[in-house]
């Protein structure tokens, strides 16, 4: 069963070489937005898979930040520059933290899940903002990555990092697609519909939520590392609620129907913002807000519904399925 690739996965695999190719044909500045969008897009993916279980994390920036800071601190204090070590450090930190916090958060639903995740991310924000060793709110800079002893510079370094980022981002997307189609993935959808019934059927909703939380944390931390390395800089703003909020908005705007949606949505929203700033540097928020509003009014299931609208999509997908009792 696992050998069989579904259409999304085929699409992602086809996209991979193309994604890498654009680094050579398109101007650097667009590639740069694509690059950072993959990092933040992965965090949006982390938000999205929780949304499938009806859980909205308003503090996903926590793991985005944990990933970036773990990689940064490994570089800063241990002098390590190897890409894979830095990435592992980010993953390990997120894994440990989310495993522990998962015991607390798995008991919460709806707005309380959102607010508790937000509270925890803001506690980290407060701690980092008053730690002078880590540059306080200014953050600190990361080293240029090396790869198993090979330390490219300049253009080579940029392209190497970009290519690796593409591989990892697409790899994560495929893995998450599998996750959504796994047993836990379906349990999550059932939790969103009716948690009590899930428990009556003999499945632990707590465990499913806990696992989902950890998976989302790890993906977000990977996103954090992949975002921080090309930037070469991390700061506590990564775990501020405004950052987390943006991930949520991207996920909703893109739609939860397909794993690729948050990745593309992140990039599109970024480009819209860039052009809004260029068009009207003083009132770009007005433009961005209006675009968001119109998207929701006309595409309530997100941008992705543009694609699926022709097919008869199953009612189960999409966050606006009617709730029992309403």
């Amino acid at each position: 069963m696992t050998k069989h690739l579904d259409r999304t996965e085929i699409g992602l695999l086809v996209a991979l070489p193309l994604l890498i190719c654009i680094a050579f044909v398109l101007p650097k500045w667009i590639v740069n937005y694509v690059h950072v969008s993959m990092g933040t897009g992965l965090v949006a993916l982390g938000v999205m898979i929780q949304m499938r279980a009806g859980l909205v994390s308003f503090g996903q920036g926590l793991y985005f930040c944990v990933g970036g800071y773990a990689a940064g601190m490994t570089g800063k204090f241990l002098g390590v520059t190897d890409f894979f070590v830095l990435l592992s450090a980010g993953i390990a930190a997120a894994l440990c933290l989310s495993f522990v916090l998962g015991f607390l958060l798995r008991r919460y639903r709806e707005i309380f899940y959102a607010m508790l995740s937000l509270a925890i991310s803001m506690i980290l924000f407060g701690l980092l903002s008053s730690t002078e060793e880590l540059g306080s709110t200014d953050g600190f800079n990361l080293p240029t990555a090396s790869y198993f002893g090979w330390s490219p510079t300049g253009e080579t370094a940029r392209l190497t990092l970009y290519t690796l980022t593409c591989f990892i981002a697409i790899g994560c997307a495929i893995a998450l697609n599998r996750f959504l189609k796994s047993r836990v993935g379906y349990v999550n959808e059932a939790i969103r519909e009716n948690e009590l019934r899930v428990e009556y059927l003999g499945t632990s909703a707590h465990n499913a939520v806990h696992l989902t939380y950890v998976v989302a944390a790890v993906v977000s931390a990977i996103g954090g590392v992949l975002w921080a390395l090309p930037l070469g800089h991390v700061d506590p703003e990564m775990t501020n609620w405004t950052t987390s909020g943006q991930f949520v908005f991207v996920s909703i705007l893109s739609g939860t129907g397909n794993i690729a949606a948050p990745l593309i949505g992140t990039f599109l929203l970024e480009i819209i913002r860039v052009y809004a700033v260029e068009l009207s540097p003083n009132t770009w928020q007005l433009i961005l807000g209006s675009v968001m509003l119109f998207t929701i009014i006309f595409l309530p299931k997100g941008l992705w519904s543009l694609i699926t609208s022709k097919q008869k999509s199953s009612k189960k997908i999409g966050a606006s399925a009617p709730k029992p009792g309403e």
Partner: protein
Amino acid sequence: MLTAIAIAVDGLGFAAWLFLSSVGLTLIYGVMRILNIAHGGFYALGAYSSAWAIGLYTATGSPVAFSFLLIPLAALIAGGIAGLLVERGILKFMYGRDEVLMVLVTYAVFLILEDVTKLIWGTESYIAWQPAFHFGTVEIVGIPYTVYKFLIIGTALLVGLSLFLVLNKTRVGKLLLVVIEDREISSALGINVTLFFSVTFVVGAILGALGGAITAPEISVSPGIGAEIIVLSFAVIVIGGMGSIGGAMIGAVIVGFARAASVHLYPPAELFSIYLVMAAVLAVKPYGLFALAESRKI
């Protein structure tokens, strides 16, 4: 002892401001199940219009005493108009949608309100200190406190009490409680739920604007103040229990005292004291202190 009294007074003053700034949010959530991020926009509108009106008024040299009337008036007009426009123009079309989607809608509205505020009043800050100074200070254990602070505390109590009375002692209030309890049944009973929604939203918006308007004389009203209030008021109503007026009051008092205590006893913790309290309360009472009991639907 001195510190303890200072913490109590400071905590109460901060709590009153918090309550006024978050009661509109909890009202709207309780009735409509909308977590209204645009609340920050209403707060900013209230603050700007109040500071602007007081500035114009005092420039004429008229007696300061009457400028107090401008505060509720500014809130009423700014909050009323903005609330009505947002509800009739946008939210009306979105009722029945998912809660999360509504958060996004109100966020978009917030972004738009931010720039609208900027377009109306520019980026310069506004100051309207006259009312805050008008009554001078009183000394408590040797520390002067402005009388205006106590006026804010009084207003907070008044707003809380009136909301309580309206909700529990009047026919409209009781009907509203029915709507909160079960939207569908109340609709079936012939209650005009849509009208209740409209009125609630506008009242919530006015209360949000009042929070901004009443604090305007103490601060410098500048771009970005709306964004600051959002998370703070979320924390307050989550601690107290979403949708509960009494909860918002308790939540405000807890947060207010926590912040005052950290400022006096351990200043570095001020930055995250509120979130620490929120995490602690939620860890013990997962649905806040005064959450409305909800039947589990099988």
